[in-house]
């Protein structure tokens, strides 16, 4: 025991302080009143538990050191005491009541979703999030933007490895924001530790939660409920901005949406489609079909040299737009824009070993979706 303590002490001295500082080891205090309440509750309960542990283990180890046979201890023969039993039943009850009171207060506050300023519908998909700003006609998907090469250790990992997305959820500070959670497929859970919001997103049901962010910044979290293969790869990123910035962001989104609608009708060249397609492929397809289109047979077929990517264009479009029943292939018609689908199909038909020269235009896709 003495050697062990000495060992721990040496380790503590040797370890540079700066190295220890990077080891995150406690719950974040967070940037909402709720998260700060929860942090306070967590620390209070933790200290109570430490105190209980010190008392119980203290008595026990004192006894272990003093009441040993090797020290000539004679065993007493008492085997019970009603008074002692009553005391150590009552004391925990009192401690538990002390814990329950602040916990109940915080919980009641967390359940008060009334009178929100902004409502956001959050839908879980395998494996990305969909955000819809209710009443604003803005909605978009948010998927992992960490390159596959970083995941497969081919390049250095960036500081936000696995906690970065293409489109962050932008929210204003100092507004009561109500979240409505649901899912398109399996159960997911939306979680941002700094907001202390975690709620299951359940297919066919809607859950509620709320937040009011006190500080601008970027807050990162992850899906918390096992939702299949890429459960570990669907992060949540919240960008908290001032109200003025939020308003201008809204305007920008609306303008971008109009531009996108117009772009469906525009004439698209091969180069443009290939560039856009590469980005779309990387975000949506590469996790299963892999960066070089080689797939992971037998579950995820290769696209490079595949009968579908080299065959009938209409069938290729049909699979991407409507998915394939009974497999992991989702229906992207609901998830991607016509431009994106056109671009990614063009990309798939003209990359790796595939050299069809086919150009699929957004207008082609739009006509399939409209029918």
């Amino acid at each position, binding site marked *: 025991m003495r050697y062990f303590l000495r060992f721990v002490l040496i380790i503590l001295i040797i370890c540079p302080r700066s190295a220890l500082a990077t080891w*995150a080891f406690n*719950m*974040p205090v967070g940037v909402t009143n709720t*998260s700060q309440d929860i942090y306070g*509750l*967590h620390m209070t*309960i*933790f200290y109570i*538990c430490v105190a209980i*542990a010190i008392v*119980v*283990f203290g*008595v*026990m180890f004192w*006894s*272990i050191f003093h*009441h040993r*046979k*090797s020290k000539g201890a004679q*065993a*007493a*023969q008492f*085997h*019970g005491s009603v008074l002692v*039993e009553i005391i150590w*039943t009552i004391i925990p009850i009192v401690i*538990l009541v002390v814990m*329950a009171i602040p*916990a*109940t207060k*915080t919980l009641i506050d967390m*359940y008060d979703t009334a009178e929100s300023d902004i409502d956001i519908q959050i839908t879980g998909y*395998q494996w990305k999030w969909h955000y819809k700003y209710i009443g604003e006609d803005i909605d978009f998907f948010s998927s992992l933007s960490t390159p596959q090469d970083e*995941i*497969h*250790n081919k390049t250095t*990992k960036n500081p936000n490895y*696995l*906690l970065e997305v293409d489109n962050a959820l932008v929210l204003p500070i100092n507004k009561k924001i109500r979240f409505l959670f649901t899912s398109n497929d*399996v*159960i997911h*859970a939306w*979680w941002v530790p700094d907001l202390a*919001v*975690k709620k*299951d997103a*359940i297919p*066919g*049901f809607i859950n*509620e939660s709320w937040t009011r962010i006190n500080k601008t910044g970027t807050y990162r*979290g992850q899906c*918390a*409920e*096992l939702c*299949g*293969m890429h*459960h*570990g790869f669907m992060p949540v990123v919240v960008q908290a901005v001032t109200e003025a910035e939020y308003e201008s962001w809204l305007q920008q989104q609306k303008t971008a949406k109009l531009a996108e609608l117009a772009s469906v009708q525009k004439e698209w060249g091969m180069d443009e489609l290939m560039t856009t397609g590469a980005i779309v492929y990387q975000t949506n397809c590469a996790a299963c079909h892999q960066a070089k289109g080689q797939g*992971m047979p037998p*579950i995820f077929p290769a696209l490079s040299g595949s009968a579908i990517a080299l065959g009938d264009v209409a069938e290729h479009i049909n699979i991407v737009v409507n998915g394939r029943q009974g497999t992991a292939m989702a229906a992207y018609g609901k998830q991607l824009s016509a431009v994106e689908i056109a671009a990614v199909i063009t990309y798939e038909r003209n990359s790796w070993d595939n050299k069809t020269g086919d150009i699929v235009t957004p207008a082609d896709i739009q006509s399939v979706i409209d029918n």
Partner: protein
Amino acid sequence: MYEQTETADHHGPAKGLMRWVLTTNHKDIGTLYLIFSLIMFFIGGTMAFVIRAELFQPGLQLVMPEFFNQMTTMHGLIMIFGAVMPAFVGLANWQIPLMIGAPDMALPRLNNWSFWILPFAFSMLLYTLFMEGGAPNFGWTAYAPLSTTYAPPSVTFFIFAVHMMGISSIMGAINVIVTIFNMRAPGMGLMQMPMFVWTWLITAFLLIAVMPVLAAVVTMMLMDIHFGTSFFNAAGGGDPVLYQHVFWFFAHPEVYIMVLPAFGVVSQIIPAFSRKPLFGYTSMVYATAAIAIMSFVVWAHHMFTVGMPLAGELFFMYSTMLIAIPTGVKIFNWVGTMFKGSMTFETPMLFSVAFIVLFTIGGLSGIMLAIAPADFQYQDTYFVVAHFHYVLVPGSVFGIFAAVYYWLPKWCGRMYNEPMGQLHFWLSIIGVNLTFFPMHFVGLAGMPRRIPDYALQFADFNMVTSIGAFLFGATQLLFVYNVIKTIRSGEKAQQKPWEGAEGLEWTVPSPAPYHTFTRPPAGS
């Protein structure tokens, strides 16, 4: 006093392999259960090794996410249903008749059958690893619809295997109850039974109550998958959350099924090595019963983020906190037993003391998890993984080790190697804490469970955890070596190798003859 006069008239064990296939002897069946659970412990441990090797560093190195999910699922299923539960049934088979002075279990043929179902159930479960689409990959909790609509085809084999395990457990439990109620030695009233027998009696009632619930919920899955029902499919009028309610109604008592017999083991060993009677026997019995009864009304504390109404959250928070009271009573009683004793620290005692300390740590993090608002931050993180491994590994598994070291001299008539046993203990306790303590930190810092890859700020603690896990895993080979060496060439054990041990099992010779208590022992 028991006398060993009639063995000569009785036949000994049959020869060859058929002895083990056809046996109805409680000692043989106990041995079979223990060997089976040891094999499963190593198979489940190998899966844990794969998990920890992948998590050694950020990035995907060894396995793909698909296979990683199969490993977490199978590790959980095998450790729970294959390692811990059969080990305790094995201990029950060996010890309950010896401790209550019965010649055998009450239903010997049922006993044979309940064991021999298990190898088939687990062969089928393990076989799914080689099926197209892979083994079950939806977590041992098998939440719908991930485990129904989105499951690999092997889910049907998983369901069948679970049914077989359930049948085995229910038959085992019936056998324990019938034996304890009908075959106690003359003069042994219920309140004179050893604590191990008491905890197993209560565990057996829990098993009978909840295994059918598990069977029901997996049958509902089966119907959803193959027969077009929609129990858990919202599109057909069902509710995915129903699955979780029914599942946890089974799985919360299941947690106590895995730990109550360990309570019993520790309640035998602490008095023996403190040379002092168990403190508060009556309150121990009532506390165990209270834990078992309360375990039926706390299940939804596993579901605080599922969107329950406020009243539900409050009810399950309060009821869960209440369980701390009887659990606390048990811990205080063990400490009270040690207090003013005359203690020695052989391997069984070391494992029992470690059980009390580390199980208490798991219990205290359990109180933290019970606080519903804080649970919104803990739920589905490594904090939960740390919590339940603290109650299951240094809890249940250390309880099993303690029991094996304590009773092995009685089973095989030879003493294990004490220094090697103590080395096994110290390496295990370092390994366990190195593995599971850092999990608290990464969990609080925001690392979700069941992910094959993680953000960079979790890297350091994950590496520590993996190193601890490799140490813990490798240490268990020492245990196997020690046990085999003991059986082959250990020193001869006395009839009662432990100075302070009490109970009928120490009144028969070591090794315990093939048939014991063919005449009931005289009233105690």
